[in-house]
Protein backbone atom coordinates (compact mmCIF):
# COMPACT_ATOMS: atom_id res chain seq x y z
CA UNK A 1 0.00 0.00 0.00
CA UNK A 2 1.53 3.28 -1.11
CA UNK A 3 1.27 5.38 2.10
CA UNK A 4 3.38 2.81 3.92
CA UNK A 5 6.37 3.31 1.64
CA UNK A 6 9.51 3.89 3.68
CA UNK A 7 11.47 7.07 2.95
CA UNK A 8 13.83 5.21 0.61
CA UNK A 9 10.95 3.76 -1.38
CA UNK A 10 9.31 7.14 -1.64
CA UNK A 11 12.51 8.65 -2.96
CA UNK A 12 13.04 5.83 -5.47
CA UNK A 13 9.48 6.30 -6.70
CA UNK A 14 9.78 10.06 -7.21
CA UNK A 15 13.12 9.67 -8.94
CA UNK A 16 11.78 6.93 -11.22
CA UNK A 17 8.89 9.17 -12.28
CA UNK A 18 11.15 12.17 -12.83
CA UNK A 19 13.64 10.23 -14.95
CA UNK A 20 11.01 8.53 -17.09
CA UNK A 21 10.48 10.16 -20.51
CA UNK A 22 7.19 11.37 -21.93
CA UNK A 23 4.17 12.91 -20.24
CA UNK A 24 3.81 12.46 -16.49
CA UNK A 25 0.91 10.01 -16.85
CA UNK A 26 3.21 7.69 -18.78
CA UNK A 27 6.04 8.32 -16.32
CA UNK A 28 3.82 7.35 -13.39
CA UNK A 29 3.03 4.10 -15.22
CA UNK A 30 6.68 3.32 -16.03
CA UNK A 31 7.83 -0.03 -14.71
CA UNK A 32 10.01 1.13 -11.81
CA UNK A 33 7.55 3.79 -10.66
CA UNK A 34 4.48 1.55 -10.94
CA UNK A 35 6.24 -1.18 -8.97
CA UNK A 36 6.42 1.20 -6.00
CA UNK A 37 3.15 3.12 -6.39
CA UNK A 38 0.31 1.97 -8.62
CA UNK A 39 -0.41 4.73 -11.16
CA UNK A 40 -3.98 5.17 -9.94
CA UNK A 41 -2.81 5.62 -6.35
CA UNK A 42 -0.62 8.69 -6.76
CA UNK A 43 -2.98 10.58 -4.52
CA UNK A 44 -2.16 8.21 -1.66
CA UNK A 45 1.38 9.58 -1.77
CA UNK A 46 1.09 13.16 -2.99
CA UNK A 47 -1.66 15.58 -2.02
CA UNK A 48 -3.45 17.56 -4.70
CA UNK A 49 -3.36 21.34 -4.38
CA UNK A 50 -6.22 23.76 -4.90
CA UNK A 51 -5.28 24.03 -8.59
CA UNK A 52 -3.31 20.89 -9.50
CA UNK A 53 -3.93 17.16 -9.19
CA UNK A 54 -1.39 15.00 -7.41
CA UNK A 55 -0.09 13.75 -10.76
CA UNK A 56 0.22 17.28 -12.14
CA UNK A 57 2.24 18.31 -9.10
CA UNK A 58 4.67 15.44 -9.66
CA UNK A 59 4.70 16.53 -13.29
CA UNK A 60 6.17 19.91 -12.34
CA UNK A 61 9.34 18.11 -11.27
CA UNK A 62 9.23 15.54 -14.05
CA UNK A 63 8.81 18.22 -16.71
CA UNK A 64 11.92 20.10 -15.59
CA UNK A 65 14.27 17.09 -15.71
CA UNK A 66 14.99 16.80 -19.44
CA UNK A 67 15.34 20.57 -20.01
CA UNK A 68 17.90 20.63 -17.19
CA UNK A 69 19.89 17.80 -18.79
CA UNK A 70 19.64 19.49 -22.22
CA UNK A 71 20.97 22.74 -20.82
CA UNK A 72 23.83 21.06 -18.98
CA UNK A 73 24.96 19.02 -21.96
CA UNK A 74 24.58 21.90 -24.39
CA UNK A 75 26.95 23.96 -22.28
CA UNK A 76 29.65 21.31 -22.88
CA UNK A 77 28.62 20.35 -26.43
CA UNK A 78 27.33 23.51 -28.12
CA UNK A 79 28.72 22.44 -31.50
CA UNK A 80 27.11 19.02 -31.44
CA UNK A 81 23.79 20.49 -30.29
CA UNK A 82 23.90 23.03 -33.11
CA UNK A 83 24.90 20.48 -35.73
CA UNK A 84 22.05 18.14 -34.82
CA UNK A 85 19.38 20.81 -34.39
CA UNK A 86 16.83 20.97 -31.55
CA UNK A 87 14.78 17.84 -32.34
CA UNK A 88 17.68 15.43 -32.95
CA UNK A 89 19.65 16.91 -30.04
CA UNK A 90 16.68 16.39 -27.74
CA UNK A 91 16.30 12.77 -28.91
CA UNK A 92 20.00 12.15 -28.37
CA UNK A 93 20.03 13.67 -24.88
CA UNK A 94 16.91 11.79 -23.85
CA UNK A 95 18.45 8.49 -24.92
CA UNK A 96 21.81 9.38 -23.38
CA UNK A 97 20.58 10.35 -19.92
CA UNK A 98 18.35 7.31 -19.91
CA UNK A 99 21.42 5.12 -20.51
CA UNK A 100 23.82 7.22 -18.43
CA UNK A 101 21.96 9.19 -15.75
CA UNK A 102 24.09 11.54 -13.67
CA UNK A 103 25.97 9.76 -10.90
CA UNK A 104 28.00 12.73 -9.76
CA UNK A 105 27.40 15.74 -7.55
CA UNK A 106 28.43 17.91 -10.47
CA UNK A 107 26.78 18.26 -13.87
CA UNK A 108 30.25 18.71 -15.34
CA UNK A 109 30.56 14.93 -15.33
CA UNK A 110 27.25 14.29 -17.09
CA UNK A 111 28.59 14.40 -20.64
CA UNK A 112 31.70 12.33 -20.03
CA UNK A 113 30.39 9.34 -22.02
CA UNK A 114 28.57 11.27 -24.73
CA UNK A 115 31.35 10.99 -27.37
CA UNK A 116 31.26 7.19 -27.24
CA UNK A 117 27.48 7.16 -27.02
CA UNK A 118 26.97 9.37 -30.06
CA UNK A 119 29.11 7.10 -32.23
CA UNK A 120 26.49 4.37 -31.95
CA UNK A 121 23.46 6.64 -31.69
CA UNK A 122 20.87 7.17 -34.40
CA UNK A 123 22.09 10.59 -35.51
CA UNK A 124 23.07 11.95 -38.93
CA UNK A 125 26.79 11.58 -39.69
CA UNK A 126 27.60 9.65 -36.49
CA UNK A 127 31.34 9.48 -37.25
CA UNK A 128 31.51 13.26 -37.59
CA UNK A 129 29.37 13.70 -34.46
CA UNK A 130 31.80 11.43 -32.64
CA UNK A 131 34.74 13.61 -33.70
CA UNK A 132 32.93 16.81 -32.84
CA UNK A 133 31.95 15.46 -29.40
CA UNK A 134 35.49 14.25 -28.70
CA UNK A 135 36.85 17.68 -29.52
CA UNK A 136 34.27 19.46 -27.37
CA UNK A 137 34.91 17.03 -24.52
CA UNK A 138 38.63 17.85 -24.71
CA UNK A 139 37.82 21.57 -24.63
CA UNK A 140 35.67 21.07 -21.51
CA UNK A 141 38.40 19.04 -19.79
CA UNK A 142 41.07 21.61 -20.57
CA UNK A 143 38.84 24.42 -19.33
CA UNK A 144 38.57 22.79 -15.90
CA UNK A 145 42.04 21.25 -15.62
CA UNK A 146 44.33 22.33 -12.80
CA UNK A 147 46.51 25.35 -13.42
CA UNK A 148 50.11 24.16 -13.54
CA UNK A 149 52.94 26.62 -14.20
CA UNK A 150 54.58 26.08 -17.55
CA UNK A 151 58.19 26.24 -18.65
CA UNK A 152 59.34 29.16 -20.77
CA UNK A 153 61.84 28.68 -23.60
CA UNK A 154 64.53 30.14 -21.33
CA UNK A 155 63.95 27.21 -18.99
CA UNK A 156 64.77 24.82 -21.82
CA UNK A 157 68.05 26.62 -22.44
CA UNK A 158 68.96 25.95 -18.81
CA UNK A 159 68.93 22.18 -19.36
CA UNK A 160 72.46 20.90 -19.88
CA UNK A 161 72.94 19.49 -23.40
CA UNK A 162 73.99 16.14 -22.00
CA UNK A 163 70.74 15.84 -20.05
CA UNK A 164 68.41 16.00 -23.05
CA UNK A 165 68.84 12.44 -24.25
CA UNK A 166 67.27 10.99 -21.13
CA UNK A 167 65.09 13.94 -20.19
CA UNK A 168 61.34 13.56 -19.93
CA UNK A 169 59.02 16.48 -20.64
CA UNK A 170 56.12 16.63 -18.20
CA UNK A 171 53.00 18.14 -19.79
CA UNK A 172 50.82 20.75 -18.08
CA UNK A 173 47.48 19.44 -16.82
CA UNK A 174 45.55 21.56 -19.30
CA UNK A 175 46.64 19.75 -22.45
CA UNK A 176 44.80 17.21 -24.60
CA UNK A 177 45.85 15.70 -27.92
CA UNK A 178 43.00 14.90 -30.27
CA UNK A 179 43.32 13.10 -33.62
CA UNK A 180 40.21 13.41 -35.76
CA UNK A 181 38.97 11.88 -39.00
CA UNK A 182 36.95 15.00 -39.84
CA UNK A 183 37.70 18.69 -39.66
CA UNK A 184 35.57 19.18 -36.58
CA UNK A 185 37.73 22.11 -35.50
CA UNK A 186 36.68 24.17 -38.51
CA UNK A 187 33.05 23.34 -37.84
CA UNK A 188 33.43 24.42 -34.23
CA UNK A 189 35.02 27.69 -35.35
CA UNK A 190 32.05 28.34 -37.62
CA UNK A 191 29.71 28.44 -34.62
CA UNK A 192 30.81 32.04 -34.19
CA UNK A 193 29.45 32.85 -37.64
CA UNK A 194 26.10 34.48 -37.01
CA UNK A 195 25.10 33.86 -40.61
CA UNK A 196 25.47 30.11 -39.96
CA UNK A 197 27.93 29.54 -42.79
CA UNK A 198 29.19 26.16 -41.66
CA UNK A 199 31.76 24.23 -43.66
CA UNK A 200 30.64 21.10 -45.47
CA UNK A 201 31.27 18.03 -43.36
CA UNK A 202 34.05 16.07 -44.96
CA UNK A 203 36.66 13.55 -44.02
CA UNK A 204 40.06 15.02 -43.32
CA UNK A 205 42.59 13.77 -40.81
CA UNK A 206 43.47 16.52 -38.38
CA UNK A 207 45.75 16.48 -35.35
CA UNK A 208 44.99 19.02 -32.65
CA UNK A 209 46.54 20.21 -29.43
CA UNK A 210 43.91 21.62 -27.08
CA UNK A 211 45.55 23.68 -24.36
CA UNK A 212 45.07 26.74 -22.20
CA UNK A 213 46.81 30.10 -22.15
CA UNK A 214 45.89 32.81 -19.67
CA UNK A 215 42.79 30.76 -18.75
CA UNK A 216 41.54 30.73 -22.34
CA UNK A 217 41.20 27.37 -24.12
CA UNK A 218 43.11 27.29 -27.42
CA UNK A 219 43.40 24.82 -30.29
CA UNK A 220 46.27 24.39 -32.70
CA UNK A 221 46.66 21.92 -35.52
CA UNK A 222 49.89 19.92 -35.66
CA UNK A 223 51.47 18.04 -38.53
CA UNK A 224 51.20 14.24 -38.30
CA UNK A 225 54.93 14.06 -37.47
CA UNK A 226 54.73 16.70 -34.75
CA UNK A 227 51.60 15.13 -33.29
CA UNK A 228 53.20 11.69 -33.10
CA UNK A 229 56.30 13.09 -31.42
CA UNK A 230 54.26 15.12 -28.96
CA UNK A 231 52.15 12.06 -28.19
CA UNK A 232 55.28 10.08 -27.30
CA UNK A 233 56.58 12.89 -25.09
CA UNK A 234 53.27 13.30 -23.29
CA UNK A 235 53.23 9.53 -22.72
CA UNK A 236 56.58 9.87 -20.89
CA UNK A 237 59.08 8.80 -23.55
CA UNK A 238 62.52 10.33 -22.94
CA UNK A 239 63.36 13.02 -25.49
CA UNK A 240 66.18 11.06 -27.14
CA UNK A 241 64.07 7.98 -27.73
CA UNK A 242 61.03 9.98 -28.85
CA UNK A 243 63.04 12.00 -31.38
CA UNK A 244 64.75 8.85 -32.69
CA UNK A 245 61.34 7.26 -33.23
CA UNK A 246 60.06 10.42 -34.92
CA UNK A 247 62.99 10.39 -37.35
CA UNK A 248 62.41 6.74 -38.15
CA UNK A 249 58.68 6.88 -38.88
CA UNK A 250 57.34 6.42 -42.39
CA UNK A 251 56.00 9.07 -44.76
CA UNK A 252 54.05 11.99 -43.31
CA UNK A 253 54.61 10.87 -39.73
CA UNK A 254 58.41 11.12 -40.13
CA UNK A 255 60.11 14.15 -38.66
CA UNK A 256 62.25 16.03 -41.13
CA UNK A 257 65.56 16.10 -39.26
CA UNK A 258 66.68 16.95 -35.73
CA UNK A 259 66.40 20.67 -36.45
CA UNK A 260 62.68 20.21 -36.95
CA UNK A 261 62.45 18.68 -33.47
CA UNK A 262 64.28 21.67 -32.04
CA UNK A 263 61.82 24.07 -33.74
CA UNK A 264 58.87 22.06 -32.42
CA UNK A 265 60.21 22.18 -28.86
CA UNK A 266 60.47 25.96 -29.13
CA UNK A 267 56.91 26.18 -30.45
CA UNK A 268 55.56 23.96 -27.71
CA UNK A 269 57.46 25.87 -25.06
CA UNK A 270 55.95 29.10 -26.37
CA UNK A 271 52.51 27.47 -26.15
CA UNK A 272 53.24 26.52 -22.53
CA UNK A 273 52.66 22.80 -23.00
CA UNK A 274 55.23 21.56 -20.48
CA UNK A 275 55.60 22.14 -16.79
CA UNK A 276 58.87 20.36 -16.03
CA UNK A 277 61.86 18.56 -17.47
CA UNK A 278 62.73 15.47 -15.49
CA UNK A 279 65.62 13.05 -15.80
CA UNK A 280 64.84 9.45 -16.60
CA UNK A 281 66.38 6.85 -14.31
CA UNK A 282 66.47 3.10 -14.95
CA UNK A 283 63.78 3.03 -17.58
CA UNK A 284 60.63 4.27 -15.84
CA UNK A 285 61.43 5.89 -12.53
CA UNK A 286 62.49 9.52 -12.52
CA UNK A 287 64.54 11.63 -10.17
CA UNK A 288 63.70 15.17 -9.16
CA UNK A 289 63.22 17.79 -11.82
CA UNK A 290 65.98 19.16 -13.94
CA UNK A 291 63.79 22.23 -14.46
CA UNK A 292 60.30 22.99 -13.18
CA UNK A 293 57.98 25.85 -14.14
CA UNK A 294 57.59 28.75 -11.72
CA UNK A 295 54.15 29.39 -10.24
CA UNK A 296 52.59 32.61 -11.33
CA UNK A 297 54.86 33.07 -14.31
CA UNK A 298 51.96 34.01 -16.57
Amino acid at each position, binding site marked *: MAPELALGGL*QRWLQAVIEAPGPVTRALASREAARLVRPGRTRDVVLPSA*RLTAAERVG*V*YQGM*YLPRMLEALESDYPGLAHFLGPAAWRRLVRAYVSAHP*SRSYTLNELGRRLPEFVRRARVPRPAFCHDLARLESAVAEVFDAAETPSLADTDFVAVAPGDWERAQLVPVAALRLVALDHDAGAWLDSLRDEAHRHPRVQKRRSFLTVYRRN*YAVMRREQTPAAFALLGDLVAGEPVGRAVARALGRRRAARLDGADAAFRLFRDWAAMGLFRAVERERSGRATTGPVVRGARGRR
Partner: protein
Amino acid sequence: MNRFGLRDLGVGIGLRTVHFGEILAKKPALDWFEVLSENFMDTGGRPLHVLERVVERYPVALHGVSLSIGSTDPLERGYLQKLKALAKRTRAAWVSDHLCFTGVLGRNTHDLLPLPYDAATLRHVTRRVKQVQDALERPLVLENPSTYLAYARSTMTEWEFLTALCDASGCGLLLDVNNVYVSAFNHGFDARQYIDGIPADRVVQVHLAGHTNHGTHIVDTHDGPAIAQVWKLYARLCARTGPVSTLFEWDAKIPPLAAVVKEAAKARAFRTASAATGTDGA
Protein backbone atom coordinates in the same frame (compact mmCIF):
# COMPACT_ATOMS: atom_id res chain seq x y z
CA MET B 1 22.35 38.43 15.83
CA ASN B 2 22.15 34.70 15.25
CA ARG B 3 23.07 32.30 18.03
CA PHE B 4 26.16 31.07 16.16
CA GLY B 5 27.90 34.44 16.35
CA LEU B 6 28.21 34.42 12.55
CA ARG B 7 28.51 38.03 11.53
CA ASP B 8 26.15 40.04 9.38
CA LEU B 9 27.94 40.24 6.02
CA GLY B 10 25.53 42.85 4.68
CA VAL B 11 24.05 42.60 1.18
CA GLY B 12 25.53 40.47 -1.59
CA ILE B 13 24.82 38.59 -4.80
CA GLY B 14 25.69 35.20 -6.24
CA LEU B 15 29.01 34.92 -8.10
CA ARG B 16 28.02 33.98 -11.67
CA THR B 17 30.22 33.21 -14.67
CA VAL B 18 28.64 35.86 -16.91
CA HIS B 19 29.71 38.56 -14.46
CA PHE B 20 33.31 37.40 -13.92
CA GLY B 21 34.83 40.05 -16.17
CA GLU B 22 32.73 42.89 -14.81
CA ILE B 23 33.38 41.91 -11.19
CA LEU B 24 37.15 41.83 -11.65
CA ALA B 25 37.20 45.04 -13.63
CA LYS B 26 34.66 47.15 -11.75
CA LYS B 27 34.90 45.77 -8.21
CA PRO B 28 31.22 46.50 -7.52
CA ALA B 29 30.05 48.05 -4.28
CA LEU B 30 28.76 44.87 -2.71
CA ASP B 31 29.39 43.52 0.77
CA TRP B 32 29.91 39.88 -0.12
CA PHE B 33 29.41 37.06 -2.65
CA GLU B 34 27.77 33.68 -2.40
CA VAL B 35 29.61 30.95 -4.26
CA LEU B 36 28.00 27.80 -5.65
CA SER B 37 30.21 25.13 -4.09
CA GLU B 38 29.97 22.52 -6.84
CA ASN B 39 31.05 25.02 -9.52
CA PHE B 40 34.45 25.38 -7.90
CA MET B 41 35.17 22.02 -6.30
CA ASP B 42 36.62 20.38 -9.42
CA THR B 43 37.93 23.21 -11.53
CA GLY B 44 41.42 24.56 -11.69
CA GLY B 45 40.79 26.92 -14.58
CA ARG B 46 39.39 30.40 -14.90
CA PRO B 47 36.52 29.93 -12.41
CA LEU B 48 38.94 29.14 -9.59
CA HIS B 49 41.26 31.95 -10.67
CA VAL B 50 38.36 34.43 -10.54
CA LEU B 51 37.19 33.07 -7.20
CA GLU B 52 40.65 33.61 -5.73
CA ARG B 53 40.61 37.23 -6.92
CA VAL B 54 37.13 37.72 -5.46
CA VAL B 55 38.12 36.21 -2.12
CA GLU B 56 41.00 38.68 -1.88
CA ARG B 57 38.48 41.53 -1.82
CA TYR B 58 35.14 40.23 -0.56
CA PRO B 59 33.90 37.81 2.11
CA VAL B 60 32.19 34.74 0.64
CA ALA B 61 29.86 32.01 1.82
CA LEU B 62 29.54 28.63 0.13
CA HIS B 63 26.16 27.47 -1.07
CA GLY B 64 25.71 23.91 -2.34
CA VAL B 65 23.07 22.07 -4.32
CA SER B 66 24.27 18.46 -4.12
CA LEU B 67 24.71 17.58 -0.45
CA SER B 68 21.40 15.71 -0.66
CA ILE B 69 20.97 15.84 3.09
CA GLY B 70 17.64 14.01 3.00
CA SER B 71 18.63 11.15 0.68
CA THR B 72 18.60 7.60 1.93
CA ASP B 73 21.88 7.03 0.07
CA PRO B 74 25.02 7.26 2.23
CA LEU B 75 26.63 10.68 2.45
CA GLU B 76 29.44 11.13 -0.07
CA ARG B 77 32.63 11.40 1.95
CA GLY B 78 34.66 12.55 -1.04
CA TYR B 79 32.21 15.36 -1.64
CA LEU B 80 32.41 16.47 1.98
CA GLN B 81 36.21 16.46 1.90
CA LYS B 82 36.25 18.66 -1.21
CA LEU B 83 33.63 20.95 0.31
CA LYS B 84 35.66 21.33 3.48
CA ALA B 85 38.80 22.06 1.47
CA LEU B 86 37.02 24.70 -0.61
CA ALA B 87 35.60 26.32 2.53
CA LYS B 88 39.09 26.53 3.98
CA ARG B 89 40.61 27.84 0.75
CA THR B 90 37.99 30.59 0.41
CA ARG B 91 37.77 31.33 4.15
CA ALA B 92 34.02 30.87 3.75
CA ALA B 93 31.93 32.55 6.41
CA TRP B 94 29.63 29.50 6.41
CA VAL B 95 28.53 26.55 4.30
CA SER B 96 24.92 26.08 3.30
CA ASP B 97 22.80 23.66 1.28
CA HIS B 98 19.12 22.75 0.99
CA LEU B 99 16.62 20.71 2.99
CA CYS B 100 15.92 18.20 0.23
CA PHE B 101 17.22 15.14 -1.54
CA THR B 102 18.70 15.28 -5.04
CA GLY B 103 18.76 11.59 -5.90
CA VAL B 104 18.95 8.03 -4.67
CA LEU B 105 20.50 4.73 -5.83
CA GLY B 106 23.72 6.59 -6.63
CA ARG B 107 22.02 8.86 -9.14
CA ASN B 108 21.52 12.62 -9.11
CA THR B 109 18.55 14.37 -10.70
CA HIS B 110 20.20 17.74 -9.97
CA ASP B 111 16.92 19.01 -8.59
CA LEU B 112 16.04 19.92 -5.03
CA LEU B 113 13.41 17.29 -4.38
CA PRO B 114 11.01 17.62 -1.44
CA LEU B 115 11.04 15.50 1.70
CA PRO B 116 8.04 14.39 3.70
CA TYR B 117 7.86 16.24 7.00
CA ASP B 118 7.33 13.54 9.63
CA ALA B 119 9.11 12.09 12.64
CA ALA B 120 10.98 9.40 10.70
CA THR B 121 12.37 11.91 8.21
CA LEU B 122 13.29 14.25 11.03
CA ARG B 123 15.33 11.53 12.74
CA HIS B 124 16.99 10.62 9.43
CA VAL B 125 17.93 14.19 8.49
CA THR B 126 19.03 15.06 12.03
CA ARG B 127 21.48 12.15 12.04
CA ARG B 128 22.93 13.19 8.69
CA VAL B 129 23.22 16.88 9.59
CA LYS B 130 25.26 15.87 12.63
CA GLN B 131 27.51 13.73 10.42
CA VAL B 132 28.03 16.60 8.01
CA GLN B 133 28.77 19.04 10.82
CA ASP B 134 31.32 16.60 12.26
CA ALA B 135 32.96 16.28 8.84
CA LEU B 136 32.99 20.02 8.12
CA GLU B 137 33.77 20.97 11.72
CA ARG B 138 31.29 23.83 11.59
CA PRO B 139 27.51 24.25 11.78
CA LEU B 140 25.66 23.42 8.60
CA VAL B 141 23.25 26.06 7.36
CA LEU B 142 20.17 24.67 5.62
CA GLU B 143 17.85 26.48 3.24
CA ASN B 144 14.11 25.97 3.02
CA PRO B 145 13.41 24.72 -0.53
CA SER B 146 10.68 25.88 -2.86
CA THR B 147 8.37 22.90 -3.28
CA TYR B 148 5.73 22.01 -5.83
CA LEU B 149 4.24 18.96 -4.15
CA ALA B 150 3.33 17.91 -0.61
CA TYR B 151 3.31 14.34 0.68
CA ALA B 152 0.27 12.73 2.19
CA ARG B 153 2.41 11.28 4.98
CA SER B 154 3.66 14.66 6.26
CA THR B 155 2.53 15.34 9.81
CA MET B 156 4.05 18.78 10.35
CA THR B 157 4.50 22.03 8.49
CA GLU B 158 7.82 22.89 6.92
CA TRP B 159 8.56 25.56 9.54
CA GLU B 160 7.74 23.13 12.33
CA PHE B 161 10.06 20.59 10.73
CA LEU B 162 12.87 23.14 10.36
CA THR B 163 12.45 24.31 13.95
CA ALA B 164 12.64 20.74 15.24
CA LEU B 165 15.62 20.01 12.99
CA CYS B 166 17.50 23.07 14.26
CA ASP B 167 16.84 22.04 17.86
CA ALA B 168 17.86 18.44 17.34
CA SER B 169 20.89 18.93 15.10
CA GLY B 170 22.16 22.40 16.00
CA CYS B 171 22.11 23.57 12.37
CA GLY B 172 21.48 27.11 11.18
CA LEU B 173 18.95 28.42 8.69
CA LEU B 174 19.26 30.11 5.35
CA LEU B 175 15.78 31.48 4.97
CA ASP B 176 14.79 31.96 1.34
CA VAL B 177 11.93 34.42 1.56
CA ASN B 178 10.99 33.92 -2.07
CA ASN B 179 10.78 30.17 -1.46
CA VAL B 180 8.45 30.80 1.47
CA TYR B 181 6.20 32.82 -0.84
CA VAL B 182 6.40 30.21 -3.64
CA SER B 183 5.61 27.30 -1.34
CA ALA B 184 2.84 29.24 0.40
CA PHE B 185 1.16 29.77 -2.97
CA ASN B 186 1.70 26.17 -4.07
CA HIS B 187 0.47 24.60 -0.82
CA GLY B 188 -2.02 27.19 0.33
CA PHE B 189 -0.54 28.22 3.67
CA ASP B 190 0.00 31.71 5.07
CA ALA B 191 3.55 32.88 4.35
CA ARG B 192 3.42 35.28 7.31
CA GLN B 193 2.77 32.35 9.64
CA TYR B 194 5.90 30.66 8.27
CA ILE B 195 8.03 33.79 8.78
CA ASP B 196 6.69 34.19 12.30
CA GLY B 197 7.15 30.51 13.07
CA ILE B 198 10.82 29.96 12.33
CA PRO B 199 13.41 30.37 15.12
CA ALA B 200 14.82 33.84 14.35
CA ASP B 201 18.08 33.29 16.21
CA ARG B 202 18.90 30.39 13.86
CA VAL B 203 18.72 32.53 10.72
CA VAL B 204 22.25 33.08 9.45
CA GLN B 205 21.40 34.25 5.95
CA VAL B 206 18.48 35.28 3.74
CA HIS B 207 17.86 34.67 0.05
CA LEU B 208 15.74 36.87 -2.18
CA ALA B 209 14.86 36.13 -5.80
CA GLY B 210 12.27 36.34 -8.54
CA HIS B 211 9.91 33.58 -9.64
CA THR B 212 7.48 32.61 -12.40
CA ASN B 213 3.78 32.40 -11.67
CA HIS B 214 2.03 29.90 -13.95
CA GLY B 215 -1.35 30.58 -12.44
CA THR B 216 -1.77 27.04 -11.17
CA HIS B 217 1.58 27.04 -9.42
CA ILE B 218 4.72 29.13 -8.99
CA VAL B 219 8.19 27.96 -9.99
CA ASP B 220 11.29 29.35 -8.32
CA THR B 221 13.05 30.44 -11.52
CA HIS B 222 15.42 33.14 -10.21
CA ASP B 223 15.00 35.00 -13.48
CA GLY B 224 13.90 38.46 -12.43
CA PRO B 225 13.35 40.94 -9.61
CA ALA B 226 11.54 39.97 -6.43
CA ILE B 227 7.88 40.93 -6.26
CA ALA B 228 6.47 43.38 -3.71
CA GLN B 229 4.95 40.65 -1.52
CA VAL B 230 8.36 39.02 -1.16
CA TRP B 231 9.95 42.31 -0.10
CA LYS B 232 7.18 42.71 2.45
CA LEU B 233 7.87 39.25 3.87
CA TYR B 234 11.56 40.13 3.97
CA ALA B 235 10.81 43.24 6.00
CA ARG B 236 8.69 41.12 8.34
CA LEU B 237 11.59 38.70 8.79
CA CYS B 238 14.13 41.49 9.40
CA ALA B 239 11.88 42.85 12.13
CA ARG B 240 12.40 39.53 13.88
CA THR B 241 16.05 38.84 13.11
CA GLY B 242 17.60 42.30 12.97
CA PRO B 243 20.05 43.00 10.14
CA VAL B 244 20.95 39.64 8.62
CA SER B 245 23.27 38.68 5.76
CA THR B 246 21.15 38.96 2.64
CA LEU B 247 21.75 37.76 -0.88
CA PHE B 248 19.89 38.35 -4.12
CA GLU B 249 19.87 35.33 -6.46
CA TRP B 250 19.59 35.77 -10.24
CA ASP B 251 20.34 32.54 -12.12
CA ALA B 252 18.41 32.63 -15.40
CA LYS B 253 18.07 35.38 -18.02
CA ILE B 254 20.89 37.02 -16.07
CA PRO B 255 21.12 40.76 -16.80
CA PRO B 256 24.26 42.90 -16.65
CA LEU B 257 25.86 43.10 -13.23
CA ALA B 258 24.50 46.58 -12.52
CA ALA B 259 20.91 45.35 -12.69
CA VAL B 260 21.55 42.57 -10.17
CA VAL B 261 23.43 44.93 -7.88
CA LYS B 262 20.56 47.41 -8.09
CA GLU B 263 18.05 44.75 -7.07
CA ALA B 264 20.27 43.65 -4.20
CA ALA B 265 20.63 47.25 -3.07
CA LYS B 266 16.88 47.39 -2.37
CA ALA B 267 17.50 44.96 0.45
CA ARG B 268 19.72 47.45 2.21
CA ALA B 269 16.91 49.94 2.74
CA PHE B 270 14.42 47.28 3.80
CA ARG B 271 16.62 45.61 6.35
CA THR B 272 17.81 48.87 7.87
CA ALA B 273 14.31 50.28 8.22
CA SER B 274 12.77 47.08 9.52
CA ALA B 275 15.48 46.38 12.01
CA ALA B 276 15.39 49.96 13.30
CA THR B 277 11.66 50.01 13.89
CA GLY B 278 11.14 46.36 14.69
CA THR B 279 8.18 46.28 12.31
CA ASP B 280 7.57 45.17 8.76
CA GLY B 281 6.16 48.51 7.86
CA ALA B 282 2.72 47.08 7.17
